[in-house]
């Protein structure tokens, strides 16, 4: 049985061994002191309490009633970007702990008790009212990006893929054009594509990562109903958050759809020769793996089992439990798209793939802990700059927004670009 309530995590809380690996990259991947840390929250606040281990301990303390949900407890709980880096590092050696799921369960308990921040509430209220987590936006304008594109409206017609733009690409200035570009380009490459028309709305994935389980489930329920009604069997999205929502979060609620990120589809089209890059881009870039596309983007494997001890005390799961350690995340597709662009040079940062550093926008931290969020982005820019690249490229609009407005440790900005921008320049 998958743990759902905070109480369900009690065995893990007590079995976490305080090794503090969850504060570092997998040790064998550390290349320098400067870029050895992995947990944005522990790095920014420094107290162990703000690490995954600290949160396991905090969960125990709160369940035991040894601390209230004090102001600092609430800060420690909500300042987790839900990036999952701790999860990867922990699972290098541990086979029976789920630190990320516990971090989120802790947030959920805080939310149940009304312990959250006004910025978070505004986003959740907006989700309720306008079906987007971007306060200030209106549902009526959500699909303006699709105007005159001639995309199939899946509430009336069938297509092989549903194009799901997500909130940022639907509304964001400079981003809506990118949604338009992808949809147009994929259609032109012969992909049978449609969109949900009036039924299109926020995936709600961020609500879950912020601890607003009820709001997420309501939103997911509405989306699942719309997708089922439209008979959608495959989704393609340019947003890593949406990708994660459909691939992992909705899957737990029973939705079975094939989910692709645009970079995966583009990589396939390039390999098949249906997409060709004609223009050269003379630029050196470094690629930032979005957490939700990378380590959190592994395929969902259903599981319903129990712990079983063998040889007296050794923990196993019956049947074997899927181990999400970041192995099967989407890392190569965006890289292969970038590598296919003539003239473009790709330089890697030290923290990449399953041990990538978060941009700081995850878990709703840009709403709950803005200083943490910008310090985390700053750290990423510093690392990106150390590669000598001209720009940092990403495949997620939330990462893009956070990196765009950040400055590195020396107060300098760096050009942050969406992978779309480079693809659009190269075709």
């Amino acid at each position: 049985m998958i743990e759902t309530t905070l109480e369900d995590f009690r065995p893990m809380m007590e079995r976490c061994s305080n090794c503090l690996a969850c504060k570092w990259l997998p040790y064998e991947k550390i290349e320098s002191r400067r870029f050895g840390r992995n947990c944005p929250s522990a790095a920014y606040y420094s107290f162990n309490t703000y690490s995954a281990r600290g949160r396991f301990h905090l969960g125990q303390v709160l369940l035991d009633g040894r601390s209230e949900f004090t102001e600092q407890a609430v800060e420690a709980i909500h300042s987790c970007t839900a990036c999952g880096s701790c999860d990867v590092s922990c699972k290098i050696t541990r086979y029976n702990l789920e630190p990320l799921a516990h971090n989120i369960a802790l947030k959920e308990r805080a939310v149940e008790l009304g312990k959250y921040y006004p910025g978070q509430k505004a986003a959740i209220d907006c989700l309720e009212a306008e079906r987007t987590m971007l306060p200030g936006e209106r549902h009526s304008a959500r699909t303006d990006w699709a105007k005159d594109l001639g995309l199939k409206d899946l509430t009336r017609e069938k297509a092989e893929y549903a194009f799901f733009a997500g909130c940022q690409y639907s509304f964001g200035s400079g981003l809506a054009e990118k949604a338009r570009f992808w949809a147009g380009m994929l259609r032109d490459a012969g992909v049978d594509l449609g969109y949900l028309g009036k039924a299109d709305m926020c995936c709600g994935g961020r609500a879950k990562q912020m601890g607003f389980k009820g709001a997420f489930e309501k939103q997911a329920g509405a989306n699942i109903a719309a997708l089922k009604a439209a008979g959608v069997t495959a989704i393609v999205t340019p947003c890593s958050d949406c990708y994660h929502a459909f691939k992992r979060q909705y899957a737990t609620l029973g939705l079975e759809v094939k989910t692709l990120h645009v970079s995966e589809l583009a990589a396939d089209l390039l390999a098949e020769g249906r997409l060709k890059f004609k223009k050269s881009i003379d630029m050196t870039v470094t690629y930032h793996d979005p957490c939700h596309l990378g380590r959190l983007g592994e395929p969902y494997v259903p599981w319903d089992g129990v712990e079983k001890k063998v040889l007296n005390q050794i923990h196993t799961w019956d049947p074997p439990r899927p181990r999400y350690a970041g192995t099967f995340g989407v890392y190569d597709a965006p890289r292969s798209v970038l590598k296919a662009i003539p003239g473009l040079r790709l330089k890697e940062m030290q923290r990449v793939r399953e041990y990538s550093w978060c941009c700081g926008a995850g878990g709703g931290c840009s709403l709950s802990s803005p200083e943490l969020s910008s310090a985390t982005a700053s750290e990423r820019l510093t690392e990106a700059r150390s590669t000598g690249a001209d720009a940092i490229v990403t495949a997620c609009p939330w990462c893009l927004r956070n990196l765009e407005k950040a400055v590195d440790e020396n107060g300098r900005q760096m050009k942050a670009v969406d992978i779309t921008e480079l693809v659009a320049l190269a075709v």
Partner: protein
Amino acid sequence: MALEREAYRAIEDIVGKRNVSEDSSVTETYRCITSQSSAHYGPFNHQTPRPQAVVLPGSTEEVRQVIRICNRYGIQFKVASTFWAAMGYVGSDRAIQIDMVRMGGVRIDAKNMMAIVEPYAIGAVVQVEAMKFGLNCNMAGVGCSSSVLAGAAGWMGFGPSSLFMGIASENILGAEWVLPDGEILRTGSLGSDGSWFCGEGPGPSTRAVLRGWQGSTGAMGVCTRMAVRLHPWPGPKLIPTYGEVPSYKADGLENFRTYTLCFNEWEDYARAFQLFHEADVIYLGHRQFNMFGRDIKGAMLKILVDSGGQFSDLLPLMDDPYVKSENEKMKIDVQIVLAGLTERDLAYKEKAVDEVLRQTHGWKSEFMLDKEMRDFVLLYLLRLGRKNLNYTLCSSYEGNFGMSSNVFVAAPLMEEASALKRKWEQDTPHIAAVGGDSDMGSMSGIGGGGTTGWEFFVHFDAYDKDSIRGTKEFIDDSQRWMLSKGLGADMGRWNADARREDGYDYTQEEHDAIYKNLPQPAIFEYQWKVREAFNPRHLTGSYYRTKTPENVK
């Protein structure tokens, strides 16, 4: 007992508001609990007391000022850097926890082959920075996640590399200490601004006072910087890896070899160790994977080396005829790594190993020569980044039959110790049944060879109260057995006289009562005098063992 407002505010003024907390959500998470305290040297089934505040100083000067405040108000303090052991946690209700997380600097002085490290520089980062200069650091067996400085200032620091590089305390070239009264002491190369690099000479050394043999376990103030000796690293600037998470493997380390050497008898094993101590050919030497247990180590390695491996594969793998027969051949085994400075050097070392095997009727395990297995083991031992595997089977472990001593002392008793543990494994469900022998330890507990470290791992479930209780009963039994053999205290008990089982410090009266019955009580009276000189307000708990001299009472 909350701190006086004045004292708390004074600390806030020193480190800044965001670097000190007395909030229960923070202070409660700085208590040592079963799952970790079981891991050596601490309270077994209790929590350590809650500190009144947790303080994160950012410089030596801040440490000094915080300690001065502690002296002014009579507040106990305990420093920790990476928190692997109970000895780093406070032992009284009127104490603050000093967490050195904000001081993590590393500077490599390649010319003088040393690293200047701050407390939060963990082994993994010191090592990668050193490797860029063709150098390497001793890595305590606790693994690369632990503080290089804490291992050297606070504890022993032996591990796979100790044979070649010496243990942590042997590598100290100088240190900067904030003493318990707030005074700063700089020794060795740090005392002379890094311009020379011998140990703590010339003149009388303070090493015995500051760390002694076992380490000062946080009882002699706060070490804020240390110069540690580095050693040759004949490998690349960064060890390349291949393979999927979590089963990363070392890639293309042409001049390194790793072998699992196996023997028929413990006598041969001990003799091989002696020959290796004399031959000086081994870069890393550790009996490592037997920590999982004699019956399951082969199966466990198969799981670890496969990125899709799961513990549910354990029983089927144990039944696999190939794994079973290879496992049987590795009953008495040790892992070694050879490093060739040149091709000829490597050839010589290989030859020396073969000769030792010839003389001791030993062999190299075929099972461990499989390429992926070899590369996994090489990365494991070189980086020592998987220490948490100690805990992975059941979530916790405790040591029994643990010592650092002559290999000829341990070897003849290994099967008896193993039989005792196997009996408990069979008669009770509380500890993992892994085949009795689950000994692990370093080939040498001192540079150049001489002593050997060994310790049986007892795997138990930190969530299961019966398992905790049963483990304690077994360990008590095992300690009785050790005493009956004249072996003294098990390694896991080395701090039993430093902190009470309820997690609190001993009182002076309790210590007096313990030490007056020991064979050489004068030692503890001498230490009493040392403490009076350096720590007149007794602010660092009872890890510094003292007995009040008769004429003072």
